[in-house]
């Protein structure tokens, strides 16, 4: 290069350096660069979270399918044999198979509870709200638990206020809550006792009260009673369940805009009263929240 050209290149390089330094040192530009980078990071993290969310959903769906399918096969074959479709069976074989079936049902209930709590925790439980007559839910619930009440000769006294409005709720899930609370009440009641189920309107809510006269809940346990896997007494495992029922019930009720709480002095014989509410006017978006989920996989 000739002398002038070299000079020009030198000047241009100097300008370049100064320009870069100016850009780097100018606080407005620094802020702008920082914001751009932050926005980019947020966008990437957002994409990552959406991906993880979808993976979580897939894991729950696959787990549900993979656990429930073998249970279906086990139950199916047991029932085929119990119905003597493969030949006669003797009493001892019948009793043994009934034990297998009972434990398979227990396993299935546990799988369902674990899936339910996972879905509630991740906000992916599917609800199907529909117009529901409270009297019908109560009747169906009492029929469902009838066999268990017979085992301990427990009387369920129901009192449903007249002319209660229909609610827009997921009927099967609210039945699940009622069955859970009544089953617990039966579990912790003495034989030949009673349980009172009262349903009434109070302002803008329907109150459901389940009162038992069993052992009650000690005061220092009440604060944790709705925690997952919480059991007042570790020995309670022998009575069945792993401590998920109340957590699931609470999750279902909160999703419907309701509440649940318990009153108990912990004195044996005074029992506990579980109370839950459901709003007369349904919460918005209980069903819309889950609309984007594929019906085949959720």
């Amino acid at each position, binding site marked *: 290069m000739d002398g002038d050209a070299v000079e020009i290149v030198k000047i241009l390089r100097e300008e370049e350096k100064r320009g870069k330094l100016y850009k780097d040192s100018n606080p407005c530009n620094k802020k702008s660069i920082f914001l751009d980078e932050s926005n980019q990071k947020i966008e990437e993290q957002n994409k990552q979270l959406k991906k993880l969310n979808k993976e979580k959903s897939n894991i729950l*769906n696959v787990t*549900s*399918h993979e656990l*429930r*399918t*073998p*249970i*279906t*096969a086990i*139950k*199916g*074959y047991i*029932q*085929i044999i119990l*119905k003597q*479709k493969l030949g006669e069976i003797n009493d001892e074989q019948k009793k043994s198979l009934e034990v297998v079936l009972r434990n398979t049902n227990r396993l*299935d209930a546990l799988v369902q509870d674990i899936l339910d709590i996972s879905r509630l925790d991740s906000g992916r439980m*599917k609800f*199907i709200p*529909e117009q529901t007559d409270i009297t019908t839910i109560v009747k169906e619930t009492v029929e469902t638990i009838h066999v268990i009440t017979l085992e301990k000769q427990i009387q369920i006294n129901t009192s449903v206020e007249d002319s209660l409005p229909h609610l827009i709720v997921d009927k*099967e899930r609210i039945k699940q809550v009622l069955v859970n609370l009544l089953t617990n009440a039966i579990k912790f009641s003495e034989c030949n006792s009673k349980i009172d189920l009262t349903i009434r309107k109070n302002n803008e809510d329907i109150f459901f009260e389940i009162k038992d006269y069993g052992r009650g809940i000690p005061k220092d346990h009440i604060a944790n009673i709705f925690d997952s896997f919480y059991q007042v007494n570790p020995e309670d495992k022998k009575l069945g369940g792993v401590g998920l029922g109340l957590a699931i019930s609470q999750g279902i009720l909160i999703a419907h805009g309701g509440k649940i709480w318990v009153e108990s002095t912990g004195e044996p014989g005074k029992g506990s009263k579980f109370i839950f509410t459901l709003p007369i006017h349904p919460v918005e978006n209980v*069903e819309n929240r889950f609309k984007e989920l594929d*019906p*085949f*996989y*959720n």
Partner: protein
Amino acid sequence: MTKIMVVDDETDLREMVNLLLKKEGYETQMAKDGEDFLCKIDEVQPRLVTLDVMMPGLTTREILERLKEKDCKPKIILLTVVRFSEEEKQQIFEMGNVIDYITKPFELDDLVNIIKKHVQ
């Protein structure tokens, strides 16, 4: 004798339902996935099909779409692990041929009763 096809990728489940339906007096054929089902359907000509949701390969939607091109139009009962809302039932039943569904794990009597309801 009413012909029923049992479609499920899980061998044990497929054979269990097959055995159950045979014992109930139905003539049965099995298929291990959507492709297998679509290959066999014109030859078997089933009146009703029990179809598992969530099989590898073709999705349930794809199976139902391709079924429209076949001469044989059996009634379909879906075996699922989920409940459907009324809106979803409407959508699924509009896909053609799907007439009912049952959730796993099911009681054998419930499956038999649903089938009896739709083939009589």
